[in-house]
């Protein structure tokens, strides 16, 4: 399996763990990720707010480069995926749009190279959950809530999963041996695009999600979006302090937990870089299992 790889800006910096774990896990599963040479920012979330054509053209350029190489594009970041998918869909929908975009980016793009969410690739193409043998360290006893965020599965016509009750991440987690705790916030927006400029709007949105996750009894949150991660992880302490709550909810990228299940080391996956300490919880997993095994 070979894909063009579009890490996006976040994965170069604030979302570095996602990048590290993706690369590590992909390698372990034999997925070849060829990083798009000289990729550009997809423009999320400012470009499409300012200009219709800029919003479509920035991601189209990346897709066009991948198309020339004959590859579909694997995109970890939910925002990048949403913008890229939009560009792809619009190009396929209308010849006129395609012509305009090709003119703007100065490259041919026929809509043949598809924007694919990394989550979807792991879920559908790899079918990772069917291969139990690959798991060296099943996540037994780990209670997770799956958080897809708002952008990953919307809108319906571009999505790969159910927009109201997506299951791809749930199925991966279940396959890894984790217990997926039901909750109502799988696709609620965390307000990441607003926490920066309008914190008084964005923070309560994040807070709701943290509250619900805590109430569900889960040990941690699993996500596939670096924006959600930044919000839920980085701001967790600040939000908690403001209302005197200690959430203690580590947030993981699903790729990190995949890596954990493959018994990769935390550092390789980037887990020590989280704001909310995240190593202890995953370290416990292995031990619990060994103890159980020892007793048996």
């Amino acid at each position, binding site marked *: 399996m070979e894909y063009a790889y579009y890490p996006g800006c976040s994965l170069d910096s604030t979302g570095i763990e996602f990048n590290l774990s993706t690369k590590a896990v992909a390698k372990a599963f034999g997925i070849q990720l060829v990083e798009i040479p000289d990729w550009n920012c997809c423009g999320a979330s400012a470009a499409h707010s300012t200009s219709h054509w800029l919003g479509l053209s920035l991601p189209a350029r990346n897709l066009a480069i991948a198309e020339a190489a004959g590859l579909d594009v694997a995109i970890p970041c939910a925002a990048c995926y949403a913008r890229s998918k939009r560009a792809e869909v619009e190009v396929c929908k209308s010849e006129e749009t395609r012509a305009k975009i090709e003119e703007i980016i100065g490259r041919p793009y026929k809509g043949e190279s598809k924007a694919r969410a990394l989550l979807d690739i792991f879920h559908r193409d790899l079918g990772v959950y069917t291969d139990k043998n690959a798991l060296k360290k099943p996540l037994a006893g780990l209670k997770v809530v799956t958080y897809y965020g708002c952008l990953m599965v919307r809108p319906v016509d571009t999505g790969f999963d*159910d*927009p*109201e*009750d997506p299951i791809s991440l749930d199925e991966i987690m279940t396959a890894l041996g984790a217990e997926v705790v*039901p*909750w*109502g*916030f799988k696709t609620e927006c965390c307000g990441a695009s607003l926490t920066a400029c309008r914190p008084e709007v964005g923070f309560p949105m994040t807070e709701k999600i943290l509250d*619900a996750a805590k*109430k569900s009894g889960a040990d941690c949150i699993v996500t596939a979006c670096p924006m959600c991660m930044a919000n839920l992880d980085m701001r967790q302490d600040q939000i908690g302090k403001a209302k005197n709550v200690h959430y203690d909810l580590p947030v993981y990228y699903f790729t990190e937990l995949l890596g954990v299940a493959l018994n990769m080391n935390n550092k390789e996956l980037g887990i020590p870089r989280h704001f909310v300490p995240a190593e202890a919880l995953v370290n416990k997993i292995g031990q619990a299992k060994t103890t159980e095994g020892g007793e048996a």
Partner: protein
Amino acid sequence: MERVGVFVCHCGSNIGSVVDCAKVAEELRNYPNVVHSVDYKYMCSEPGQNLIKEAVKEHNLNRVVVCSCSPRMHENTFRACVAQAGLNPYMFEMANIREHCSWVHAGHNEEATAKAIDLAKMAVAKVCKNKELKKGHSPVTKRALVVGGGIAGIQAALDIANNGYQVDILERTPSIGGKMAQIDKTFPTIDCSACILTPRMVEASSHPNIKLITFAELEKVEGYVGNFDVTIRSKARSVDMSKCTGCGTCMTKCPGKADDEFNMNLQKRPAIYTPFPQAIPNKPVIDRESCLKFKSRKDGKDVCGICAKVCPAGAIDYEQEDEIFVEHYGAIVMATGYDQFDHSVYGEYGYGKYPDVISGLHFERLVNASGPTMGHIVRPSDHKEPKTVVMVKCVGSRDPEHGKSYCSRTCCMYSAKQATLIRDHCPDTKVYIFYMDVRTPGKGYDEFYNRTREEYGVEYIRGRVSKIYQDGEQLIVKGEDSLLGRPVEILADMVILADAMIPQNDAAKMAQIVGIGYDNDGWFTEAHAKLGPVETHTAGIFLAGACQGPKDIPDTVAQAGAAAVKVCGLLSKDQLETDPCTSEIDPALCAGCGHCVGVCPYKAISLETIEERKAGKTISRQVAKVNASLCQGCGACTVTCRSSAANLNHFTNAQILAEVDALCQTIL
């Protein structure tokens, strides 16, 4: 010699203000075979019709053309008029210069006039080729079939039976009663549904003119108005109806368990069962899917048999088989009812997974004194009384994207009714109703709605609910109070979704079996939205109740009565006139290839052997022959027939070609 009279109608100003009617009349006066041509204000009026009758006499007309409105409007009027004038009613044609001309070409008077002249010429050309046709006659079987044993079917059957005609009710479930039997109270009077329904059920079952055929399916309908042959499959009850006394011992001893459909799966029922205590006939059937004996037989074993052991009458018969028989009827009433929309398509409402998010019909069983909770309103999940109930209207209704585009008509009222019932049963419980519009057109309906708000304190919030999710033991309902213009969240213990009314899931198949139309949603189509609401396009088949579209009980009963009157009118005749516009096959031209037999949807064509002299010898050969009583006149055979042996009366090849030629003659 053809002597055609042309009459051009102004229809007041409807036609006259656009089409120059005098010019049309004048132009036609010079058209071949036209001997008389005039225009007049209102041709359909009595003086207008007299004009035709007098002209026929005066000018010795043998054919008449009226240029006026759509033949779908007045063809019969003028045919009758022409007949009164002493001509055969089929020596008449209409040119539609109103709906197809003046009304659609306003302001283009010249072009519209030219078009009217064309249309008139086409009609004249056709009428010259018209032949005198006589209606045929067919006998009437004085017996009706009502398909469906809900309130619509029961009412229609009673009305027919009380008029002295035999009628059978065909019901697919083990008992008549339908949805109304499941409902607790009826709006706006809060009558007990069962209390008003069961007497009617008893009356139907004991009426000398009514025969109940329950637990049976409609397999096939053949024949035509007055003479339907209906094939019925009586499903194996596994209980001998003639022996069973309905004591019910078997049901109490049966170890098999199945979901209780009548109670919306809120509880279990035995495998041998009657759907509800007042069922009619009150004799059980064995549900072979859940019966231990029948299940074990599939594995080659043969266990249980308790019901047979305990039955004091020896009525249990495991070897019974489906029985297929054919009955003859003169008329059929379709009263197959509706089904409830499945709200599990809504992910935002939990895909039907939250136990305390229930449908309106669920609630009816919950609140019913003979229901699974003995009428105590409790949540399905933990059987606690809900302190806050949220009701959501238009679930699946008015939602072209995820459900149906239409309004289900009954939900506004039943939601209001259910809200008052909750407030009556549980005075401490708060009830919120999310709505988009409150639609209460019905006697006493709006008053009821207002009482719901004012006297019962039910709070109405205008807005569609966007999301319901489980929050611990409770549910959070997110909506907008669009009158306040702000989003609201309600913490609820139970949510009742007013699911849309949808057609039975096999409605389309049923329509195809009986040969009637159905719309895109699957509702059976009436013959005319306004003037033929209980008739269908197939003569002799009528509609009653919700199978035709969402309806409440009063409307259903009214329509059932209307359908019954139509049936009685039909059955009161000894003979029926048949439309002579049927296909006819000229045996001299027919080569007997039989391709027409295959395309006829009414099986009206068959091959028969005729004797013929050929080359000095008598030979016998096969030719196709049309049974005029079965033929409905579609004309499929006429095109299939290469040698034009098949022709459709009143729409013959010669007539249509004459029209085509007449139209094209006016091209330069």
